[in-house]
C-alpha cells in the first residue's frame, strides 16, 4: 500500500511541476513571472524531498535544500531586484500569443508522454513517470525560451528547464550526488554569467529586450 501511495504522491508532485511550467508560459508581467518561477522551484523542492523519502536516499535532501534556498529564494529575490533597478516591471514581452503558446505546450507534453512511456516500458514505474514529466518540463522550458523576447524571460525559461533536469536526476534511482550538486552549481554559475551579461547589456543598450540586439548583427551594414 505504501508503495502505491508513494507512487501517487510522486506522480502528483511531478505533475504539479508541469502545471507550474504552464503557469510560467502565460505570465505577461516580469514580477509575476519571477513569482511563478519561485513556485516552480518550491514544487521541485517538494518533489525531490519526496523522492528522497521514498527512495530512502538522504543525499537527495541536500538537492532539495539547494533547490529551496537558491532557486526558490535567492534567485527570485535577485531577479526582483534587477527588475526594479532597471525599471522594466511594466514590460509585456511575449513574442507569441498566449493561446498559441498554450496549445503548443499541450502538444509538447503529449509528445513527451508518448515518447517516454513507450520507450521506458520496462523501467521502474516511478522513475518512468517522473522521467516523462521531466521531459515535459524540459520541453516547456525550451518553448518558453523561444516565445520570450526579454532577456529575463529567457533566463527564467532556462532555469525552469534546469528544474526539469533536476527532477529527472532525482527520479533516477541512486544517481550519484556528484551530478546533482553539479546541476545546482551550474545553475548558480549560469546565473552569475547571466548577471554579468545582463549588466553589460544594460550598460550598452539601456534595455534588456533581446530584440534590440538584432539591430547590431555584424552581417548587416
Amino acid at each position, binding site marked *: 500500500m505504501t508503495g502505491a501511495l508513494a507512487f501517487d504522491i510522486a506522480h502528483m508532485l511531478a505533475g504539479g511541476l508541469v502545471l507550474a511550467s504552464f503557469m510560467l508560459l502565460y505570465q505577461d508581467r516580469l514580477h509575476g513571472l519571477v513569482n511563478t518561477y519561485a513556485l516552480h522551484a518550491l514544487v521541485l523542492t517538494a518533489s525531490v524531498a519526496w523522492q528522497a523519502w521514498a527512495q530512502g536516499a538522504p543525499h537527495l535532501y541536500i538537492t532539495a535544500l539547494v533547490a529551496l534556498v537558491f532557486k526558490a529564494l535567492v534567485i527570485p529575490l535577485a531577479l526582483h531586484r534587477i527588475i526594479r533597478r532597471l525599471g522594466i516591471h511594466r514590460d509585456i514581452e511575449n513574442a507569441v500569443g498566449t493561446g498559441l503558446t498554450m496549445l503548443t505546450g499541450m502538444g509538447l507534453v503529449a509528445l513527451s508522454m508518448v*515518447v*517516454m512511456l*513507450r*520507450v*521506458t*516500458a*520496462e*523501467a521502474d514505474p516511478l*522513475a518512468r513517470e517522473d*522521467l516523462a514529466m*521531466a*521531459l515535459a518540463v*524540459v520541453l516547456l522550458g*525550451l518553448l518558453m*525560451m523561444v516565445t520570450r523576447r526579454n*532577456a529575463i524571460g*529567457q533566463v527564467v525559461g*532556462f532555469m525552469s*528547464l*534546469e528544474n*526539469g*533536469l533536476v527532477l*529527472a*536526476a532525482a527520479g*533516477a*534511482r*541512486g*544517481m*550519484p550526488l*556528484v*551530478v546533482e550538486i*553539479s*546541476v545546482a552549481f*551550474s545553475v548558480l*554559475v*549560469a546565473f552569475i*554569467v*547571466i548577471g*554579468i*551579461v545582463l549588466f*553589460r*547589456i544594460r*550598460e*550598452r*543598450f539601456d534595455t534588456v529586450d*533581446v530584440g534590440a*540586439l*538584432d539591430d*547590431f*548583427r*555584424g*552581417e548587416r*551594414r
Partner: protein
Amino acid sequence: MSGFPFDATVAVLVVPAVAAAVLALLPGYRAAARVNVLASLTTFLAALSLFAGGEGEAGNYLFVDELNIVFIVLNTFVGFTASVFSAGYIRHELEMGRISPANLRFYHAMYQTMMFGMNLAFVANNIGLMWVAVELATLTTVLMVGLYRTHEALEAAWKYFILGSVGIALALFGTILVYMAAQPVVGEGNDAMVWTRLVEAAAGFDPGLLNLAFVFLLIGYGTKVGLAPLHAWLPDAHAEGPTPISAVLSGLLLNVALYAVLRFKILLAASPGALAPGPLMVGMGLVSLVFAAFMLYRRRDIKRLFAYSSIEHMGIIVFAFGMGGPLANFAGLLHMVMHSLTKSAIFYCVGHIAQIRGTQKLAEISGVTVTHPALGWAFLVGVAAIAGLPPMGVFMSEFLIVTSTFAAAPLLAVPLVAGLVVAFGALTMRATGIAFGAPPENRPAGEAPGLAAYLPIYAHLALVLAAGLYLPPALVGWFRHVAGILG
C-alpha cells in the same frame, strides 16, 4: 611504469588549473602572456609524455586510452601555439585600446581555465564529470567571446550562451537516460556512470532508452559541434571574440563536443539492440556540409567566412564517423586533426590581417600579398589546404572520405562531393580577393608582425604539408587502431 601515465594525466589538469589561479593574481600583461605560454607548453609536454606511458589503469574518474590521447595531444598543442599567437595579438589590441589591462588579466585566467575544462572533458572516465567539464569550457568561452563588450560581441556572447546552455541541458538529459539504462545492469551509484564499466556492460542495456539517450546527446553535444541547424551561435562567436579564441573555438572546442558524441557512439555500437547511430550522424553531417558550403558565398566578414568553413568541415568529420568502418573512421580522425591544425593557422593569419588592415570586412581587405608577402602567402597556403588542394593533409583525408563513401554508398557521395566543390569555389574566390589586387589606398598599411608571430602559422602549415606527403607508419598504425575502437 604503471604509475607514470596517471601522473601525466593529473599534470594535464593541474598545470592549467594552477596557471589559471596564478594568472588571476598576476598584474602586468607581459609577464602574464609569458606565464600563459609557459603553462601551455608544460601542459603540451605532459600530454606528449602520455604516449610514453602507454595505457594505465582506468580510474573511477580519470582514464587514458588510445582514443583520448590523440585528442589531448592535439588539444594541448594547438592550445600552446594559440598562446604564442595570443601574446603578440594581445599586445596590439592593448595598444589600439580595445582591451584594458584589467580585462587582460581576466582573459589569461579564463584561457587556462578553458584549457583545464577541455582537458578534463577528454580524460574523464565518468559521463557526469565529462558533462561538467564541457559545461565549464562552454561558460569560460562565453565570457571570452564577450570580452570586447561591443554591441556585436554582447549579442554573440548572449546567443552562444543561450544556445550552448540549451545544448548542454539536453546533453545532461541524455546522460541521465544513459544512467537509467545502465542502472539495472551495472547497479546503482557511481559505477553506472563510469565509462569503461558502461562499455563492458552495454550489451545488456535497454535499447529503447539508449536510443532515446543518444538522440538527446547528439542534439545536445551536436549544438556545440556546430552542426546545422543548431549552428546559429558559431559564426557570431567566432567573429566577435578575440581571434586567439576564434582559433581555439574552431580548432579545439568543437572537437571536445565531437569527442563526447564519439564516446556515446561507441557505447551504442556495443549494444546490439540499439539503433545504428550512423544514419543520424551522416544526415546531420551532410546537411551541415552542404548548407555551410552555400552560405560561404554570402559572407562579408573574414572571420565569419572561416567560421562557416568550420561548420562545413565539422559536417564532413561527423559524416565520416557516421559512415563508420575502419577506412572512414581513419579518414574522419585524420581530417579532424588536419582541420584543427589548418583552421587555427588560418585564424592566426586572419588575426594579423585584420589587425594590419584595421577591419574584418572582406570588401575592405585586398592585396595582402603585395603589402605583407610572408603573411599573405602563408594565408593562401592555409586556404588552399582547407579548400582541399593537394599535396596538403586535408586533401588526403578528404580523398579518403570520398573514396570510402563511393565504395560503401555511392549515392551519398554525390552530395558530399557537390558540397566540397561548392565550398572550394567560395573559398578560392574570397581568398584571391584578400590576397591579391591593389591594396586599399585610404587605409594605412599596418606594421608587419615580427617573426615570432609567424612561427605558430608556419609550424601548423608544415605539419599539415608533412602529413599530406608522408604519414609515419607508427602514426598510421595508431590511427588505425583508434579507428577500430570507433567501430
